[in-house]
């Protein structure tokens, strides 16, 4: 049963990752790409947390948790940088 939960969420994570990645490639609008990359990142986080899960009785592995925690913050800062680049691009185009 534990393995089932782990397997289920891990596979959903992989599915989200590939869904996000392929639509990041497929869409032309830059904002959509940034959104899609964020979904792909969330899928990878889900995979890592599924690896850490040990069932309801045993404490989960804190190492992937720490990785994902820093990952969320890095993903935000990368998104902010990407959006600032988009804004700059648009300003340059307008001139």
């Amino acid at each position, binding site marked *: 049963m534990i*393995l089932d*939960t*782990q397997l*289920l*969420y*891990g*596979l*959903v994570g*992989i599915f*989200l*990752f*590939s869904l*996000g*990645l*392929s*639509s990041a*490639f*497929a*869409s*032309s609008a*830059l*904002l*959509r790409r940034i*959104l899609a990359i*964020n*979904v792909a990142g*969330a899928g990878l*986080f889900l*995979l890592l*947390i*599924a*690896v*850490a*899960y*040990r069932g309801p009785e045993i*404490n*989960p*592995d*804190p*190492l992937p*948790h*720490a990785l994902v*925690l*820093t990952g*969320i*913050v*890095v*993903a*935000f*800062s990368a*998104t*902010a*940088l990407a959006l*600032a*680049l*988009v*804004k*700059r691009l*648009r*300003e340059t185009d307008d001139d």
Partner: protein
Amino acid sequence: MTDVVWGLLDLLLILALLALAWGSLNSRNLQRAVIYFIGFGLLLALVWVRLRAPDIALAEAAIGAGLTGALLLAALRDASHSPDHTDRPDRAWRLNPVPTLLSLGLAVALGLAYLQALEIADPQRLAVAVFSHLEQSGVSNPVTAVLLNFRAYDTLLELAVLLTALLGIMALGQARPAYAQAGPVLAGLVQWLTPLLILVSAYLLWIGAHAPGGAFQAGALLAGAGVLLRLAGFPDSHFPAALILRGMVIAGVSLFLAVGLVLMLVGRGFLDYPPAWAGGLILLIETAATLGIAATLMLAFLGGRPAAWSLDTSTTGRIQAADMVRHNTGDNP
């Protein structure tokens, strides 16, 4: 019986998660796509709780859903005049065979690796090392112990990454124009929420030593208070003066680094805390990191240099900010 309940919960969570992800990737209207993404983030926070990762649930709700959502909505606002924003007549995207096949291949490879990892997993791995040394780490929350003690080096570098991203954003131009003064309801709400957010942030910072919480969650909440102030029409969100603001941004990295170097000077390894001092040193580093993360996330939300960032006498900056407010009074969403 309980298995059935858990199974049902899993099924509902996953279906809703996939539906929201699909919506945020395929919705024709970009604004709707962003709203779907925020919902996706909030649901993901529930998934983290389900998978017994409450530290991450807190961070996801505050950063993944909250701050990223606010950032994307702000970016949409300044894209609203450009052609690529509005509802597209055709599909949001076209399936392109090569990248799609590549992503599928990558997914299959990941899946195979994952199945193999589950098979060979002796269920312990590094977790055992963490739990057996937890008592010497100075804190009892294993995630905080990993972040600030066992793998402190990684966290130091991560704060440096955050700082680098911010420097990039600052180099790219001015901040987004300020928002118009909020009406009485939002202004009143913000007045009540800001002190509460500061209080909860301090609580999360303190409790992070032995329960879910810590510098990242506390910093994100504090940044959330700043974002709220900005949205309610305070152009600089009560930022401190330029020098202090710059000091805050580098506070996390510099204090972390200083602690590591001082420990080397007294003959220990870099960031190798003496067990008796570990708890205090971790709290010290986390306090500086909270301030640094809050200032960094908040400035990243602005998308460029705010008036308060500029070191030359604040008069010109203030006038510019006031001008921007006047410019945008009709533009407040």
